[in-house]
């Protein structure tokens, strides 16, 4: 049981990193980013190449930075000019981007799935709560939680964080008060993409790499963001952990029903409490 709970926690933390980026972007740009899964998949492959040529530690630094730059470019030369469009247009645009990125990855890295071994320092297993558990997954849990705590602290305490929260709750009023909302948006889209990058690298040795991995996790990420409350970071964080745990518990208790869990959770949540766990508060 402890092992199952840790598994749930590991998957929950991966969703946590991925969905906090999605929630931030939705909060600030109002964009339901369908390309988030594709960015995550791209990051996993970049991380794969960086690991084979350099090392896993280098990949852990390079990939999020590369994705963050990509995100900033995307915002500066794409989303900014389309911010007045209907949200549906943005959904379709990011849908299109997903196709392009998927094709790119299939061309460069091929269509077959790949796997990545964790570095020697993280291979093997450790003993926690009286059970042996893979070291790498513990590392994933630690890194993910650390990054998210840092993110919340930064949003709460820094000046840029204040600007981001202000732009997110009311873009126009924030602009009137002298906040550079475009800069805040660029930072957030960069940050969100960087988080997708981090999730991609972390997922490499944990799940297997395939061009479909983005689509598979995207729906789960959406569920997390919706259940948490659209655009709310804190809500998404709680929802990610709840979903991870619910998956783990269901797979032990009711294995045949476990596949229903995420969808049923979203259905019940939307019908009973459409605003999600946290409403629309950013952090």
């Amino acid at each position, binding site marked *: 049981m402890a092992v199952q709970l840790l598994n749930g926690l590991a998957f929950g933390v991966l969703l946590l990193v991925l969905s906090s980026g999605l929630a931030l972007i939705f909060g600030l740009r109002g964009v339901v980013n369908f390309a988030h899964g594709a960015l995550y998949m791209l990051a996993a492959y970049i991380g794969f190449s960086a690991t084979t040529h350099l090392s896993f530690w280098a990949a852990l630094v390079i990939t999020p930075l590369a994705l963050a730059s990509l995100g900033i470019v995307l915002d500066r030369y794409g989303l900014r000019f389309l911010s007045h469009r*209907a949200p549906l*247009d943005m959904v379709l645009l990011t849908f299109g*981007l*997903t196709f*392009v990125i998927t094709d*790119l990855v299939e061309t460069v890295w091929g269509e077959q799935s790949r796997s990545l071994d964790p570095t020697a320092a993280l291979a093997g297993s450790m003993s926690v709560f009286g059970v042996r558990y893979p070291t790498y997954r513990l590392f994933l849990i630690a890194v993910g939680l650390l990054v998210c705590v840092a993110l919340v602290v930064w949003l709460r305490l820094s000046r840029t964080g204040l600007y981001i929260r202000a732009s997110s709750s009311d873009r126009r009023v924030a602009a009137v008060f002298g906040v550079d909302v475009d800069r805040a948006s660029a930072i957030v889209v960069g940050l969100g993409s960087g988080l997708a990058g981090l999730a991609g690298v972390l997922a490499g040795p944990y799940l297997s790499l395939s061009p479909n991995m983005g689509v598979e996790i995207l729906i789960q990420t959406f569920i997390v963001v*919706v259940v948490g409350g*659209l655009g709310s970071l804190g809500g998404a964080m709680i929802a990610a952990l709840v979903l991870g745990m619910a998956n783990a518990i269901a797979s032990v208790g009711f294995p045949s029903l476990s596949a229903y869990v995420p969808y049923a959770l979203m259905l019940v949540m939307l019908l009973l409490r459409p605003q999600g766990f946290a409403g629309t508060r950013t952090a």
Partner: protein
Amino acid sequence: MTVNETNQHTAEAREPARTPEPPTQAPSPRPGLTVRDALRAERRNDRWVAAAWAVMMLAGFAMPYVLAAYPLQLAVQGTTMGLLAMSIGWLMRQTGRMSFGHAAFYGITAYATANLANHTGLSPLAAVGLGVLMGAGAAVVVALLTVRTPGISFAMLTLAIGMLIWVWAGQTPSVSGGFNGLNVTFEGDFLGRPAAKLINPVNAWPLAWIALMAGMALLWCLSRSRFGRRLTAIRENKERTTFSGHRTYPALVLAFVLSGLMAALAGAVSVLTTSFVSTDSLYWSTSGMALIVAVIGGIGSVMGPPAGAMAFIALQASLSASSHYQVVLGAVLIIVVVIAPGGAAELVKRTARTGARYLGADRHA
């Protein structure tokens, strides 16, 4: 006046993300142009559209004499996808609601028809009829649950319901054939011809074409009816429509059910013309792809989504050898959204309007 203005402001502040005005609306008001004039111009316009529809309907029947077997097979696929795209696009245009769950009605109808034909010995026509009824019935249930929620939440609710059904199908191989899919053996006649022969595109084409054109005509008439206008009013401002004394919930439910019925029809055509169903038909990306082709074709017109579907199937087939169709499709989608919001239909409409003005035939509008 002041009250009116404040009302407008609050309504706009509450939902800043409204869908753009549909191109079906009358053009910008001019001095001297009454509502009656606008309606008359609209009706004159309608006559042209109806004529175009009739020509297309007749021309369609010539397809088997023009196209070889493989392109005709693709065209049949295109009509199936076109029906689904049309159902989703129409719902989006009339109610502003984006459904990711229409694959469920499509898939349920296909599976129900397949299982009835395989296990009960019903005639193909009865199996198809019951299948469509089951698909539409599912749409009724989903509609009652979901239509109250607006915006992204509606998309996510329909997605959740569709995916629950997909999971169920994946775990119930006795019904769905598991991930290998389900082959269907039709025995007996369907509308006077052996149903099993519908797998040949030459036999299947007239059926698929009639289904598409009939669906198109139905949705077109509905958009122009009083019911269609009421739906537009609800989309633009639900609260104000309620204040005007109209009940919004039954109208939305009916719109969703009609759209679901069209998706069910698409499922029926699909299972009849391929004799095969797989769980992929229930997956959310079936709805997602239909939505994409609907937008590329243009949801402002009922002809847009089927045209988009045909173009997509043709593109996919012509690029399948190079395996780069994804990048082309993605690029096309991005370009359409950025450059031509409203899709191909909007481009055609704009060209036609300019042409008409150039010829002096469009004096009023």
